[in-house]
């Protein structure tokens, strides 16, 4: 049954990957929804979190999963500072091209990744935890199984934690006042203002939450991958591809979009060829932009309103 095994294994890989991708995209989607800015430095914030996790592991032997508790607050504060001193002033400036905010984030991305190269050198780093290549095997539990499937331990752990964080975020957004303010601002900025929402504070908090999410994503990624200064780029790409597929500013869209992208990339890698995977990612991105500009969220919205 090698074809079935191949398909299932690819599907599982795509699913796990998608869950993690979704976490990265969640942060970006939130920020995009509230601040209407595409943060092209998103992946570089993640890189910073990963370096924090790396140094905690190398110097103090703290497991990367625990580093979240250090990296997340650190990045939260850092993000707030950036938001207050760099992003907000630019939003008010008058200029010929309104794209200044995006270009500013590009500048930030360059500075972060280059400073990391200068301070940490371009060396690849990893956190080789003892359980790095451990996995659960189907045949260990079902010896007569016709196919062999494996579930990598760190991947699964990261996926589960990502799910927990996503659920926590969902509860925060739907049940708390701050969360509701955030969603309101995201839907209609001016209406929220009229309703008495402190939009500036909401912006700050949202950016901070976005940072927490991306810090968590980084700590969850480092045991299964590795770290180098220019890493931010590819994850920023992943982030905005998913936000477009999912729908700008939609958190549900980000999660579903993440899963779609993860599975799509896995399937492309297996059945078309791995060399095309990055192109595949962008192809689906352009297709989504052109054919489904509102993303998956627009489909969900139609369903909801349709009822």
């Amino acid at each position, binding site marked *: 049954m090698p074809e079935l095994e191949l398909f299932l294994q690819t599907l599982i890989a795509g699913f796990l990957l998608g869950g993690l991708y979704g976490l990265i995209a969640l942060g970006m989607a939130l920020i995009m929804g509230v601040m209407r800015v*595409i943060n092209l430095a998103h992946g570089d914030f993640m890189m910073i979190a990963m370096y924090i996790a790396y140094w905690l592991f190398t110097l103090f032997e703290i497991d990367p999963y625990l580093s979240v508790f250090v990296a997340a607050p650190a990045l939260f504060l850092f993000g707030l500072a950036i938001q207050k001193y*760099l992003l907000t*002033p*630019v939003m008010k*400036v*008058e*200029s*010929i*091209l*309104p*794209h*200044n905010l*995006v*270009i*500013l984030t*590009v*500048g*930030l*991305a*360059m*500075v972060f*990744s*280059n*400073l990391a*190269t*200068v301070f940490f050198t371009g060396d690849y780093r990893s956190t080789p935890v003892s359980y790095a290549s451990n996995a659960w095997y189907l045949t260990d539990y079902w010896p007569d199984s016709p196919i062999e499937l494996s579930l990598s331990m760190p991947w699964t752990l990261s996926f589960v934690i990502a799910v927990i964080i996503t659920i926590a975020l969902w509860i925060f957004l739907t049940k708390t006042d701050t969360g509701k303010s955030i969603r309101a601002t995201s839907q209609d900025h001016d209406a929220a203002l009229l309703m008495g929402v402190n939009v500036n504070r909401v912006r700050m908090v949202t950016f901070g939450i976005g940072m927490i999410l991306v810090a968590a994503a980084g700590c969850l990624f480092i045991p299964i991958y590795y770290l180098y200064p220019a890493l931010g*780029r590819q994850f920023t*790409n992943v982030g*905005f*591809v998913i936000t*477009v597929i999912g729908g700008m500013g939609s958190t549900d869209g980000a999660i579903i979009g993440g899963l779609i992208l993860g599975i799509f990339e896995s399937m492309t890698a297996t059945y078309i*060829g791995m*060399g*095309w995977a*990055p*192109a595949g990612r*962008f*192809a689906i*991105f*352009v297709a989504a*932009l*052109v054919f489904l*500009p509102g993303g998956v969220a627009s489909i969900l919205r139609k369903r909801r309103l349709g009822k």
Partner: protein
Amino acid sequence: MKKFLPLIIFAALCLVPLMDLSSYVMHILILVLMWSVIGMAWNILGGYTGQVSFGHAAFFGFGAYTAGLLYYHLEISAWWGIPGCVIILTALSLVVGYICLRLRGAYFALATLALGEICRVATENLVDFTQGNLGIMLRERTWVDKTWYFYIILLIAAGTYVLIKVVMESKLGYYFVAIREDQDAAESLGIDTTFYKTISLCLSGVLTGIAGAFFMNYMGYIDPGVVFPLYDISITIVMVVMVGGAATYWGPIVGAVIMVFLAEEIRSIPYIGAAHMTIFGVILILIILFLPNGIVGDFRKLMKPFKRKREATS
């Protein structure tokens, strides 16, 4: 006096090769001129028509590969790439335009970014056709001495400058700016925005492609990582124009001068050299914060602190 300034500068540049400068200095000047061309080309679409593209590397790379593949597969001189560009890049621009021009603002920027990356990956993977990452190398370059390259790129740059001036002072230019300022209003006035945006894109694309073809001939070696990369080409173009001043005639040129000099000079300094991207990033951030219209665009703002000092002393 101001009217003749461009002519004076052009004449001065014509005389440069006669000054017997070192080959290295000539190289820098050629790079400055090439980046000016690319910057000016981008400016048509980005600065004047308001469609910010993060994927101009696609046009640059296509131009370089047109020249390179003509050489590699048909064994004709790579200089044929330049006329070849006009056809191929127009075709590419039409395709890109069809896909992307319906998108607005940041969506357009991202879509062009994506297309630039797709071009890169496709070129890497279609190894049989493009040689992938093995690259294309000219067996021998046309001239060892840099003089003729300098004149060719000077001609291209001057031509681009004149073309832009003519276009922007014509009705076409007004349409572009109208689209930039408020696309919906322009549409409601009866301007076919899609048509004019496409023209803008084609002009921009073809000129960038010509620069790419020149690059192939001048450098003698290209591969997808050299001509299609996101940060080194696409984003650098944006930086050049933003730093110099979008929607100005001289902005891209000033930007090119600054960026090329900074790149070359900073790189040579032992410890700071590695940090040159940081310095670029910081410059970009500062420009966005304080001089959002670039050095040329916000020239008056830039000169303010100097004027105040003069007043204080008098």
